């Protein structure tokens, strides 16, 4: 008993630490992209799957292995949305009457969950990741933390909030309401019915090495364990534990008066024997047929969406906003990004915002770049540091400094120097590569901006600071990031001077 208490408290402490840290970083750290933050995001399952070729393989292997050994510990200790639901559920438990606290075994919604898993798998395998923007638990938590948490904190502290987005807020608020109510009244319903990560890990946890087990000889079928199960997966009347839905919270063990419920080594022959006993009853057959049809529906829906997406045509993509550095191109971003908005939170210059229409319908809520509030810091790659799926590919700072997000376009007629005949040079001042430089022009004694497009990296410094209305210099975003030419060399001979000159 004591061991279980320790285990259970270990889970609680770890879970609370994980969610507290993740929430803290998402909400407060605009420029403190510390290693801990990045590390906490790197252990998330679905980002790991999507970034399997860019460092996610380790994450996926470790999580699958952990699940194979101990069950769905990822769901209870690492997934922020899972932990959030546990916390809501616990708070609701305190509020509810004794009667209402009780849960009970309920049948799994196999049709829905395997259908969704099949659908998502087909989509992801064929490079259509967008459904995960709406389904991945970690990124849903990120969207809530960034689009609800950050404006709230900004409102309280009186700081300015730069990355406000109505669609993202509406999405986050709607999901927040949904998940909070669901968790309060139905426990881990989301994790066991909708979440594709939960369903997939559930397939593994079915055969995990350590599992919750009910000892038939000691069980008095009092149902106490089932009443404390937030996954609704434990039935002591017929002694059924649905391990695919169990998130090893260990609540059942504490509730048992006869120590019949244990969390123990389960790779014994006994389990296999039990399985052999199962006979193909009519009910079983019906269930199997139903499952197959659900899978079929999922697969065909996935195939349909993928095909639809393919047939849309590969015409030159035009984007209404830029992509964060390291995204590569729009297609790659759509393949790898699940819109967790960690980059939105991390960008110290507040240039990354959730897109609504700028990146097409498949780009809804994906990170896009605009320069109303700042420009891309030349020395900065915070977004790449925090990105958990490698959607924003981490690169050397030297490479990042040559990554072209767009190209500056200058309109002489709008320029202050042309309109008013007075000095300005704000664009030149901000350009880190001197793709914009002040040059003399015939018929004027003033200096005018001149753009060298090949060198321009589209950081937006010029656009951001341009004081003219309409702006005389803007960055035209590109759907495909390229490598800019290295800045022009202008070596200067070092001189020693003798006098002061005055």
């Amino acid at each position, binding site marked *: 008993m004591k061991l279980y208490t320790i285990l259970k408290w270990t889970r609680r402490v770890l879970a609370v630490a994980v969610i507290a840290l993740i929430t803290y970083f998402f909400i407060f750290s605009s420029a403190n992209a510390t290693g801990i933050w990045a590390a906490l995001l790197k252990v998330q399952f679905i980002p790991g799957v999507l970034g399997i070729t860019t460092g996610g393989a380790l994450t996926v292997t470790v999580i699958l292995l952990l699940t194979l050994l101990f069950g769905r510990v990822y769901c209870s200790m690492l997934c922020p949305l899972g932990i959030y639901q546990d916390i809501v559920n616990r708070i609701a438990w305190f509020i509810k009457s004794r009667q209402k606290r009780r849960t009970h075994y309920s049948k799994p919604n196999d049709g829905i969950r395997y259908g969704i898993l099949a659908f998502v798998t087909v989509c992801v395998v064929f490079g259509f990741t967008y459904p995960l923007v709406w389904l991945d638990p970690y990124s849903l938590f990120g969207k809530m933390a960034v689009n609800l948490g950050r404006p709230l904190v900004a409102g309280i502290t*009186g700081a300015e909030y730069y990355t406000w987005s109505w669609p993202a807020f509406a999405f986050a608020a709607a999901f927040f309401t949904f998940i909070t109510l669901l968790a309060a009244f139905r426990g881990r319903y989301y994790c066991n019915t909708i979440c594709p990560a939960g369903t997939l890990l559930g397939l593994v946890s079915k055969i995990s090495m350590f599992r919750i087990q009910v000892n038939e000889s000691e069980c008095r079928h009092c149902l106490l364990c089932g009443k404390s199960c937030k996954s609704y997966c434990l039935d002591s009347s017929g002694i059924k534990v649905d391990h695919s839905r169990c998130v090893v919270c260990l609540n059942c063990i504490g509730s048992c008066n006869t120590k019949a419920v244990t969390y123990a080594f389960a790779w014994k022959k006994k389990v296999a024997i039990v399985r052999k006993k199962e006979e193909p009853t009519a009910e079983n057959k019906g269930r199997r047929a139903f499952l197959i049809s659900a899978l079929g529906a999922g697969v065909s829906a996935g195939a349909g969406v993928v095909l639809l997406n393919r047939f849309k045509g590969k015409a030159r993509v035009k984007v209404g906003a830029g992509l964060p550095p390291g995204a590569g191109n729009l297609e790659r971003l759509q393949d790898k990004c699940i819109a967790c908005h960690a980059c939105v939170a991390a960008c110290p*210059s507040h240039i990354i915002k959730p897109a609504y229409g700028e990146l097409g319908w498949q780009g809804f809520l994906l990170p896009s770049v605009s320069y109303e509030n700042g420009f891309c810091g030349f020395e900065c790659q915070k977004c790449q540091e925090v990105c958990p799926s490698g959607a924003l590919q981490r690169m050397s700072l030297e490479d990042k400094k040559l990554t072209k997000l767009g190209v500056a376009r200058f309109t002489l007629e709008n320029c202050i120097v042309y309109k008013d005949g007075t000095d*300005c040079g704000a664009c030149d*001042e901000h350009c880190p590569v001197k793709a914009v*430089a002040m040059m003399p022009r015939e018929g004027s004694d003033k200096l005018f901006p001149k753009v060298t497009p090949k060198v321009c990296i589209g950081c937006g410094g010029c656009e951001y600071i341009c004081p003219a209305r309409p702006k005389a210099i803007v960055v035209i975003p590109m759907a495909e990031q390229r490598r800019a030419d290295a800045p022009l060399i*202008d070596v200067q001979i070092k001189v020693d001077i003798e006098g002061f000159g*005055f």
Partner: protein
Amino acid sequence: MKRRNFLKTAFLGTIAGTVGLRAPRLMAGNASAEAAEANPAALPDIVAVMGGEPVDLYTRAIAEMGGMKQYVKPGMKVVIKPNIGWDKTPEYAANTNPDLIAAIVRDCRAAGAAEVKVFDHTCDQWKGCYENSGIQDAVKEAGGEVVMAHEERYFREVSLPMGVRMKKAKIHEAIVDCDVWINVPVLKNHGGAKMTICMKNYLGIVWDRRYMHSNDLQQCIADAATYEKRPVLNIVDAYRIMTQNGPKGRTTDDVQTPKAIFMSKDIVALDTAATQFFNQYKTMTINDASHIVLAEKHRLGTTNLSSLNIKRIRL
């Protein structure tokens, strides 16, 4: 704290304090500085020192200017305004030298300043600027305080009755509330204003720099400098200077290292002198950087250096 420890600390503190106060003058070892302190009228209008490390240059120059006690009295709230505009390390000369800023903060503290605040309304993202310029750490270590200036709420509107194009501006609250402030720019060329020295450094105490850029930049710079609370001292950091691709610069190729410092109470005269100094590297006149001439029209100082008492020192 035990009484013995307290007494020990108090005793050592007294010694440290006394030595600290004395250090600049001891190191300067210059009789004229001592004499000048007694008679402010005899102080030079401009002090220029060349050929040393930032702290040595400063120590000598401030001694010639009569010591920091001339400008900072005990209990005063002091602001030091360097140029921290860019996310660049010191060797790029995009920002004021951190060692120099640290020396000034220490000196102000030694002169009895109640608080010493340092800020800039940066161009690049502020955190990167504060950190990589080395100024944040230097100031903290020297006993000063770095304050933020990246949001409009830190700025308060003041009127500039003498202004031609800019009649009012939002100025950083630290400047508005302080007793004295010291202007410490780095010497650089500038694509728009042509030169960025003392007066151009005012863009970092003003919130809306776009207004200034779009309403005759040169005139607006001169107008900003008419703000009634003038810097009690201007110090130009010319240890490293940027002679091309300014004010941000790209590589260390843009930098020259004359190892100099200039000080004056007259902002126009100091900008004039610094421009003439710069002219030894790249052709530049105060007519190009016309805010200097415009400021003279505002009677903020003189561009006629021959009328001034200039002290030129080579270490």
